[in-house]
């Protein structure tokens, strides 16, 4: 029983000025699946992730060719409003980046900018999101203190809560645990397992064990191309491609 495609990249090329960073990417992401993007530094996996919510639009000299479908609609179509797309596709960044505001205001931010005014709705949504991010019990008594006083792991879970508050359908995670200690990393991974029940998750990681632990599907990127994609178990136990095997066994990259 195949789950349906939530997002699909079709014939995606990406350029920074004259430099081509992605070549002909064809990759689909299933609903309520976790997909890991792996590959050595500079292989284009983060660039690809940022194509999926049009974060690369911010780079003035960049150019995209091809399509990215969200529920079968191309998010690069001229009629599409990028602001709406970014609400539907949440993003968590490599370094925890809470705003210099209170814990409450960090989570409420996305609601406020998207036009939610009702105080009760905001408060309810903030609590729900913090619970989903497994942070509520730790912060419920200091919601109105600055988010910058939290530990790195808590900050990252706050950023996840902040992303969840605007009810995205897809969650993009760009090495979400690479700046965290092992315990905090474990919490994030457990969280990904929980969130998978509701969201399609795409995670970039440098950590092979992490990819193996959290993902259902793995795509191996090298030099701007997808070298191999398949079920995570297969990729890690029986890769078809020699480069994939060398990378996951730590012989290069």
């Amino acid at each position: 029983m195949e789950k349906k495609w939530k997002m699909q990249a079709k014939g995606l090329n990406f350029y920074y000025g004259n430099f081509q960073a992605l070549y002909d990417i064809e990759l689909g992401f299933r609903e309520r699946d976790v997909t890991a993007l792996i590959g050595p530094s500079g292989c284009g996996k983060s660039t690809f992730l940022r194509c999926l919510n049009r974060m690369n639009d911010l780079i003035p000299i960049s150019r995209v060719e091809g399509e990215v479908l969200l529920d079968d609609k191309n998010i690069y179509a001229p009629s599409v409003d990028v602001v709406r797309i970014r609400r539907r596709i949440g993003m968590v960044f490599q370094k925890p980046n809470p705003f210099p505001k209170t814990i409450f205001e960090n989570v409420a931010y996305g609601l406020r900018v998207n036009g939610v005014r009702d105080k009760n709705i905001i408060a309810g949504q903030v609590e729900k999101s913090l619970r989903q991010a497994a942070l509520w019990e730790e912060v419920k008594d200091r919601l109105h203190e600055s988010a910058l006083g939290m530990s790195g792991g808590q900050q990252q879970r706050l950023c996840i809560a902040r992303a969840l508050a605007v009810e995205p359908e897809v969650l993009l995670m760009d090495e979400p645990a690479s700046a965290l200690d092992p315990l905090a990393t474990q919490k994030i991974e457990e969280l990904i397992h929980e969130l998978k029940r509701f969201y399609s998750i795409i995670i970039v990681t440098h950590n092979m064990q992490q990819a193996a632990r959290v993902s259902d599907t793995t795509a191996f990127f090298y030099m701007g191309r997808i070298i191999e994609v398949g079920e995570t178990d297969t990729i890690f136990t029986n890769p078809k491609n020699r480069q994939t095997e060398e990378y996951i066994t730590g012989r290069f990259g």
Partner: protein
Amino acid sequence: MKDSSEESLSGENGRITGIFDKGAGLNVRRRIQTLWFTLFRGAALVNGFALGLILFFMLSRGWQAISWEFLTQPPRDSMTAGGILPCIIGTLGLALGAIAVALPIGVASAVYLNEYASSGKITRIIRLGISNLAGVPSVVFGLFGLAFFCIILGMGVSLAAGALTLGAMTLPVIIGATEEALKSVPDTYREASLGLGATRWQTIWRVVLPSALPGILTGAILGISRAAGETAPIMFTAAVFFTPKIPSSIMDEVMALPYHIYVLATAGTSIEQTRPLQYGTALVLIALVLGMNLVAIIYRSKLRKKMR
């Protein structure tokens, strides 16, 4: 496989070649370090010394002139006695007016240049204009103000014309400070905000500007306090030789501290007799400027603490 260069490097003694036994020893290197650091420390001390000397002169020669009357009365007896209240009010008015003009325009320009404009030909020309504006001598601003605000716009010699001139002079400082402050806001804040479905404007208004505010305000106040001490831009546009009245509208002419010092020190008939008044006025001006800077610094550290 060994090549010949490797052979000669390792030499007969093997790993230890002795190349570090020759050349400048540690003692020499330490002495060179001490020499340079002493020179640099001297250079740094010159700054403190200069400020100290200025303050010492002003205090030692001006403090006798300072009295309650000096601060609360207009000058009398052809400005050889009495106080400088109209000058204090005039200078404060000019500074406030200038900041009211320059802050919104400067911040808006910097936000446009740093957050919105693509780096094309037009923005390059605007930037070039701004950096050249910063290099225009203050007396040229004064003449420009006279020609444009006083005559063409018909403002005459007035608080408004002077404030606009000082504001124009401060614009590049405020734009520069604001751009610096905006650049120091991490891009990750912008990305986080946009990633949640905020528009670029919402991102600027709700995240970027609040984070940049301490830097913007200190830059603005430092720029204004600098401008408040200028004589040339206001001597044709706002300041008059003598007026006992406190300005009641922005179209009134005013007295101002820097111009008053200039007048007392050069244009009077009793220059020697008013020497203490000159130093007293200078002391008040310095106190005013340092006071503004102090307010800026305290305000900045408060804002920073609040954000932590």
